[in-house]
């Protein structure tokens, strides 16, 4: 019986004007998205590989162990996602490279490379062009896959009630739940037919180009993305049915639905994020961060100078010259090492703290934003596509892991040289043996399927939960409503 209703609904919808318009808009947007992606993505990939090559050649030209340590692993770049057309995720603003966190040369010593606070590309928002959103899948899904289901469902029950066909329908041996499920599936399938049609167009265009060949994992991610989008459409079908079951007039139900839509989809994701930060403790400003770094450095430097002076005095007062190894005083080296490594550690710690406070604020605001299903879908799609803020955090984590690896490599190399004094961070105390360029660890920014799926799981569960809530809401309302 349910299938009977579903097919009737489907036939009704598929021949309607709204289905035609829906398909037209979705296909037009998806085709645009694909064409623009083909135009911009090769350039992005080219720039990335150019930069990576330049950075690696420079890295391999360094043969001295000390230079390697002092200059660090070079710039580490974020690999552009092959699914960037799904979700832009503000990637133009987010930093795509790691930066060094300081610069000084004093007393014949130099700073040691540490990971600094990556610069955001403020040019992305500070340019003169008018504000606009990127027409990616996130845009298409969050706005249209919520708006269109409402247009299909606003009169599903209230319209039939107005015309009296609902009473007629229920006079037959059809249970209310069956009718509701039939309506739900009918509307959802109609919307999804249009959406899948557009998706096929999009993917067909994108896979024509060899530049953007999608791998097996990418297709797996795409399946999840399409599922998330379908679930989101289902959620709005359920909302539409709930409101439609509640109202007697289809006009009223449309107005209520549109206002809900405007608030939840258009306004909440923008306002809530900013609103929630109002009650958060203010973060350290850039100026304060710099001052904190400077004071910490001054402290370390004065410690170093004090120790250095006392060492000098002690040596002058002691008549006998100290035991020296190859013309170098080990205690002197030790003090230098302490200075240099402490400076690096503190710089890195302060940068990490600064960053973690900032990201905590953003993550918090994102949680508040999740009141809106549009934001949930946005975050889920961003995570699945490997863009956006989660990806940014993952990139920083990869950088940190690589830096640890890199430093371990230097220590190992130094340890393997018997002539070295094993004082890391001071030119005189380190191995002078040239390093083989092939041995230097190379940074590769790779994300696995696991990386993309795990942050999205929460969002997917939330979405399914919301879907369940609204579906049962529709049942409850419809079962108790008078026909």
């Amino acid at each position: 019986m349910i299938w009977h209703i579903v097919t009737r609904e489907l036939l009704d919808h598929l021949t309607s004007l709204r289905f035609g318009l829906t398909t037209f808009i979705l296909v037009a947007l998806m085709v645009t998205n694909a064409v623009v992606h083909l135009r911009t993505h090769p350039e992005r990939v080219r720039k990335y590989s150019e930069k990576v090559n330049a950075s690696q050649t420079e890295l391999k030209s360094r043969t001295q162990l000390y230079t390697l340590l002092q200059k660090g692993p070079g710039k580490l770049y974020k690999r552009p996602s092959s699914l960037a057309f799904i979700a832009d995720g503000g990637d133009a603003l987010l930093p795509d490279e790691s930066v060094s966190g300081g610069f000084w040369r004093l007393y014949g010593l130099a700073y040691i490379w540490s990971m600094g606070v990556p610069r955001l590309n403020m040019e992305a928002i500070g340019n003169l062009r008018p504000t606009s959103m990127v027409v990616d899948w996130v845009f298409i899904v969050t706005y249209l896959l919520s708006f269109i289901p409402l247009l299909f469902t606003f009169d599903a029950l209230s319209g039939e009630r107005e015309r009296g066909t609902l009473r007629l329908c229920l006079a037959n041996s059809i249970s209310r739940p069956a009718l509701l499920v039939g309506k739900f599936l009918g509307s959802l399938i109609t919307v999804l037919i249009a959406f899948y049609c557009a998706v096929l167009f999009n993917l067909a265009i994108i896979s024509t180009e060899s530049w953007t060949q999608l791998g097996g994992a990418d297709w797996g991610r795409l399946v999840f993305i399409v599922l998330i989008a379908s679930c989101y459409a289902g959620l709005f079908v359920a909302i539409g049915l709930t409101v439609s079951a509640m109202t007697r007039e289809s006009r009223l139900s449309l107005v209520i639905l549109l206002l809900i839509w405007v608030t939840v989809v258009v306004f909440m994701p923008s306002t809530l994020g900013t609103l929630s930060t109002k009650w958060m403790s203010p973060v350290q400003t850039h100026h304060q961060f710099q001052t904190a770094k400077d004071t910490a450095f001054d402290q370390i430097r004065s410690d170093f100078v004090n120790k250095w002076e006392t060492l000098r005095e002690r040596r002058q007062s002691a008549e006998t010259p100290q035991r020296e190894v190859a013309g170098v005083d080990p205690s002197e080296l030790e003090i230098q090492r302490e200075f240099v490594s402490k400076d690096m550690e503190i710089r890195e710690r302060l940068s990490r703290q600064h960053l973690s406070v900032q990201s905590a604020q953003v993550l918090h605001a994102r949680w508040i934003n999740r009141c809106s299903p549009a934001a949930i879908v946005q975050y889920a799609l961003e995570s699945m596509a490997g863009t956006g803020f989660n990806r940014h955090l993952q990139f920083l984590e990869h950088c940190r892991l690589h830096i640890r690896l890199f430093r371990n490599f230097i220590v190992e190399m130094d340890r393997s040289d018997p002539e070295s004094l094993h004082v890391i961070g001071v030119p005189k105390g380190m191995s002078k043996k040239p390093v083989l360029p092939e041995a230097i660890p190379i940074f590769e920014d790779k994300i696995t399927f696991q990386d993309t799926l795990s942050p999205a799981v929460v969002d997917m569960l939330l979405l399914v939960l919301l879907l369940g809530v609204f579906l049962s809401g529709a049942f409850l309302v419809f079962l108790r409503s008078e026909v």
Partner: protein
Amino acid sequence: MMLRTLIRQELLIHLMSARFFAAVVITLLLVVANTFVLIGVHEERLADYSQKEAVNREKVASTATYSILRLKVQRPPNPLSLFSAGLETRFGSEIDIAFDSVPALSNPIVDVRPEEEQWAFGSVPSLSSPGAPLGINNPYLYLFSQIDLVFIFQVVLSLLSLLFAYDAIAGDWETGTLRLVLSHPVGRGSVLLAKYIAAMVCLLLPVLMSLLLALIQCSFARSLQFSTDDFLRIGGIVLTTIVYLSVFYLIGLLVSTITRRAATSLMLCMFLWVILVLVYPNWSRFALNSMGDMRAEKRSADRQIAQIREEADRERDRFLANSTLKGEPPIFSGSEGLSTLFSGAGYFFLGDFPRVNLELKDAADPLALHFRRYYAFAAPLQIRSAEKVGFVGQQLVARTSLRQAQVDERLMKFSPASLYTFATAAWAGTDLDSMVDYIRAAQAYRRTLINTFHEREAFASLQWFAPNQGDVDWSILPRFDFERAEIGINAKRALPELFLLLCLNIILFMATVLIFIKVEV
């Protein structure tokens, strides 16, 4: 007489309807919530502004010589950005004012320079462009978009006006009331007019109510003060809002007269709304990139700038060759030659032009005299070449970034929603032209600064380069006061968009009337 009855009837229908009530409630809620957020943002911006001002003042006070003065000026936050944010909250506010670089809207040359060169120690900036925008401490928060009050009207009220209009004719036709109404001695035109007037009055109500609420909220926040002119500008925004909403109402009315069924009319209206308000403004910028690659242009400008620099360097070398001091350029090749003249470590930039900030042992030294002569020659030369560079840079900006922004705007103007955005930004003084105004003011300020230097003969003085030869009197610095454009200019800038909206109105109304007169009832 009949017209008035019709209007009264339509008004009552609208005002009593649940859709009107719901829409008003939502508009008010959104406006109140967003005003709350926006006032907070504005306060943050103000705090940031005054903090940066204080830091800049301190920096100037601790600057010891004229030549290393790096003055920073800021654009004070515009309170009307609450209504229409435009570029105001995104575009940088702080700009460097120096005698050897000219302020510009942006610095497109940066794109074509290799990265190492950009950050190279001692490289002379060719153009100074505004830095980060005021306000947000945590730049990651830019990931969340902000909305202004105008955006609420743009989205919610345009939707409402379509909801008023979609069944205005088609609905009456379906229910048969249209035939009934027209059986009275009333012209078809007046029926349309009555519907139009009633709907516009109903739409105006939420606009005025929410604006009043927003203004009341603003009056509680002490940081926001509107002048009389600002109120007039807000009036301009209201006027534009009415014209904009009227466009959408008329679109709905036109669709409603063309279609026979309210349901069809509704679907057409909804999809038109999605396309005009939501899709097209974003799509046009995303999909149409008519500017193409501008790197070649930028590179050629970069070369031109390098040439100007080389010329200046040659002129400097000529001067040094003819000077009483021997050597190739004698003073600046390294620090050895300076040890007799200077003590103490300081700035020593070996860029295109040296910027010396060293302590002088003996002011009467003939070398010191030579330095004064050198700078009396070199500083004006630097100013001249900076102005040439500035000219090239500004032409480049006009051809690249500025033109791109203008092309984007022009493309977006095919949608009435974007016309509305740009017109209100022009009223509020947050549009592109206002940013250009700001850069002009900064340029004018730089010229006054240079004139002040000239008056004081700063270039030839010891204080130009030596920090220990008497304090520089920084009270001579002219104040930077950026005045927003006058309201007349705002109105003039909003006029083209307003005019287009009005034209749309007239065309739509004429079309509706013509079709309605011919339509069979």
